[in-house]
């Protein structure tokens, strides 16, 4: 690979050799590795346990076919497994398991293409510039567009670049929008970081153009409709193999887009624990560069493409909210382009913050990749998993507790590095003003208020903005949140209104003469980004103990 494709990066490229992902394995090679893992595991299992494992998948898959049409060959595979279970025939059951794992691996696996990456990184900055300046050609001529002013990439970037050289890095970002993956891809490129593998929902591959690029730019496929244990194990094994192969990877530990707009408070531990697993396997085999690091990343955006759909889904009666949404704003290309154009025309619209990197147990690490204890001293993290002779002691239950600790550390980092923006603060102020006007109403009643009942006195809104600005300022000084807010309350409100109106068709905050009309759903959605700090009577995440 030439060095040309790095030229546009904000930071110089320091990789001594092409990243491991440039030599991604073929699907059949990957399937072999995963089959080996599964066979080793099942050698310990009784006939009964194998039968239960397979039955679970047969049951889950048949249920799935009630709403989703199976792919060619898929249903037949599942029926063959059912027959093997019926005959209580272990060799046949094992063959069925192999067949399922191979098929799942082929579906999950995509092979990274250095050529597609080179093309994408050449085209991307120009595409972004064109996209923005298409509305205002004068800006193209004046050379006014600078993506760095629109998308602020900040935090421990240098450290992450160093750690990419020392081991394998897992990037764990917050998740608001389907645009997050391409946005993060862009941020990694701007930060001079190598390409990352990432897990993307199968629903994102429905668009053939997206599918073409994603499958070649490190995206592997996750089908969240598949609930069988065998699929989940295959996915976890796949992830472990990625880390062991030295592929830096990103996945969204929240599992899906935050429906409410809140920063993630509970995370999916399954994939998160695969880093710890890979590290221990590397240690026990004495591999060079065995370390796996976790880097939390917080995305803070003024506007969210799918805000309207996500919040109404979050508010839908419990049990009716959808885990997978296929008909939101993302599915309409026109809306996506219009959104991007508008957002990228706003200054400081997007903040991507790389938090303090950690080990796979949630301890902070220094630039050398050494783990740090509570007193700031270096600790030998191998002693958490090895005996006195340095041999790895395998203990899945212990590892689950360690992974829960990592998850709590991630949640705290997400909240600490979340950036409070004018739209969030104005929305929370509007929500508080609305609650002040209707003190007896709960959230569900507030979002159903009639048009005239949504009016609040402007003075009341300004009071709330001033008070909140002060509170958030204090939190920021104490290091509990980051803030990018103007000092002046009027300026802050105006900035927020301009941003809201630049995209949403419904007006979030609509000024009248002495009053403002609030759209309660949108105000709630954007306000929720500031939940977790005790600003609105909510529980404080920073106090959740480690």
């Amino acid at each position: 690979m030439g060095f040309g494709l790095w030229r546009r990066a904000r930071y110089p490229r320091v990789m001594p050799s092409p990243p491991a992902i440039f030599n991604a394995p073929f699907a059949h090679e990957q399937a072999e590795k995963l089959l080996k893992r599964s066979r080793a595991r099942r050698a310990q299992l009784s006939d009964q346990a194998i039968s239960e494992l397979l039955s679970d998948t047969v049951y889950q898959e048949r249920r799935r076919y009630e709403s989703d049409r199976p792919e060619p060959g898929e249903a037949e595979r599942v029926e063959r497994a059912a027959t093997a279970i019926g005959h209580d025939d272990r060799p046949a059951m094992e063959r069925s398991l192999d067949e399922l794992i191979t098929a799942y691996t082929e579906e999950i696996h995509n092979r990274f293409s250095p050529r597609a990456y080179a093309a994408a990184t050449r085209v991307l900055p120009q595409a972004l510039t064109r996209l923005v300046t298409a509305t205002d050609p004068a800006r193209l001529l004046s050379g006014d567009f600078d993506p760095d002013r629109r998308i602020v990439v900040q935090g421990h970037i240098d450290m992450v670049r160093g750690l990419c050289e020392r081991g394998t890095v897992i990037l764990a970002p917050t998740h608001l929008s389907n645009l997050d993956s391409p946005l993060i891809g862009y941020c990694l490129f701007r930060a001079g970081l190598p390409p990352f593998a990432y897990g993307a929902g199968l629903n994102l591959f429905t668009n053939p153009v997206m599918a073409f690029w994603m499958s070649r730019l490190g995206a592997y496929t996750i089908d969240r409709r598949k609930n069988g244990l065998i699929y989940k194990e295959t996915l976890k094994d796949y992830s472990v193999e990625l880390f062991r192969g030295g592929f830096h990877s990103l996945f969204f530990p929240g599992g899906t887009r935050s429906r409410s707009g809140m920063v993630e408070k509970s995370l999916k531990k399954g994939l998160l624990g695969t880093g710890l697993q890979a590290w221990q396997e590397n240690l026990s085999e004495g591999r060079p560069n065995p370390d796996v690091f976790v880097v939390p990343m917080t995305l803070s955006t003024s506007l969210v493409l799918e805000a309207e759909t996500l919040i109404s889904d979050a508010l839908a009666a419990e049990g009716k909210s959808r885990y997978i949404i296929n008909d939101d704003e993302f599915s309409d290309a026109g809306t996506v382009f219009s959104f991007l154009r508008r957002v990228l025309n706003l200054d400081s619209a997007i903040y991507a913050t790389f938090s303090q990197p950690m080990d796979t147990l949630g301890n902070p690490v220094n630039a050398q990749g050494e783990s740090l204890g509570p007193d700031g001293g270096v600790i030998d993290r191998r002693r958490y998993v090895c005996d006195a002779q340095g041999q790895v002691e395998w203990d899945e239950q212990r590892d689950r507790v360690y992974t829960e600790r990592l998850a709590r550390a991630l949640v705290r980092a997400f909240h600490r590095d979340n950036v409070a923006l004018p739209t969030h603060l104005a929305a929370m102020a509007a929500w508080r003003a609305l609650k002040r006007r209707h003190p007896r109403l709960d959230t569900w009643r507030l979002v159903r208020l009639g048009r005239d009942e949504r009016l609040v006195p402007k003075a009341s809104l300004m009071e709330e903005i001033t008070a909140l600005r002060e509170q958030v300022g204090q939190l920021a000084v104490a290091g509990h949140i980051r803030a990018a807010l103007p000092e002046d309350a009027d300026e802050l409100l105006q900035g927020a209104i301009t941003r809201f109106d630049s995209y949403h068709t419904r007006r979030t905050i609509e000024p009248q003469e002495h009053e403002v009309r609030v759209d309660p759903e949108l105000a709630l959605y954007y306000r929720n980004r500031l939940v977790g700090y005790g600003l609105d009577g909510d529980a404080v995440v920073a106090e959740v103990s480690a």
Partner: protein
Amino acid sequence: MKVSVLGAGPLTAPLSQLLTLAGSEVRAFDLSPDAPAEDHAAALHHAELIFLTVPGPRLAASLPSLRLGPEHRVIVCSRGPDEATGLWLSELVSLRTACLRVGALAGPLSPAEVQRGSPAAAIIASPFQDVRARAQAALHSPRCRVYTSDDLRGVELSASAARALTAAIGMSDAMGMGAGVRGLLLSRGLAELRRLGKAVGANPDTFVGLAGVGEVVAASAAADDAAYLAGRALLRGEADPHEEAIAVTAALVKLGARNKVDLPLLEAVNEVATGQRTAKEALKGLMERAAKLGGE
């Protein structure tokens, strides 16, 4: 199994005795500030498992000198929460040191009864199965039954509240109240504990086990129990704020306030301990609370 017992609390001797009976190779070390530093290093090096018996109010100050590391497994035997930080003692260890594999020991382990050779029972709680199994193996014997639980928060909370309730019963006994008041204190105390437990994510079943009911019943029947004696001393206005039962009562009241949980009984004991009310006024105040339908 090689085990160290660190600290000079009242449990050090009976615990060492029971561990030895269970076949563990025990070394007990004093952790007072004037103990030689090489003792600490020897204690840590020796042990597969460390029992910390430093009294709760002194634990935070002792931790830096302990140099606990990633390789250690620690069972905390004293009672929290730490009054200054509001942290449970196991949290204090896992947040202030590099040791993550922590657990707690609780239950009716009366030093005098262990000395006399009576059968005893204890509960070990830890989120780590490996820690629970090792601690059980180290302590379980025909003399001491050891149960385990993964509800570390519940066991720590129950064990602390048991100290506070025992003090309340000691106080009421000293006032000459009858068995009816004992029953009232125990049952209302448990109701407070359930509310507090719910707020901090503990399993309510834990409170009716060894760490909660088991310990209150045993401690309040033993005339020499430290918490019971501290409760009796309250009536004479002689509360020692450093006594474990008095310190944990204050910490639990703070925890209740932070979680907006109503704890009238514990608050009354705390008010007596801090001199805001006499024992008689406190009891009167409790009895005069407005009657509630349902009782919870």
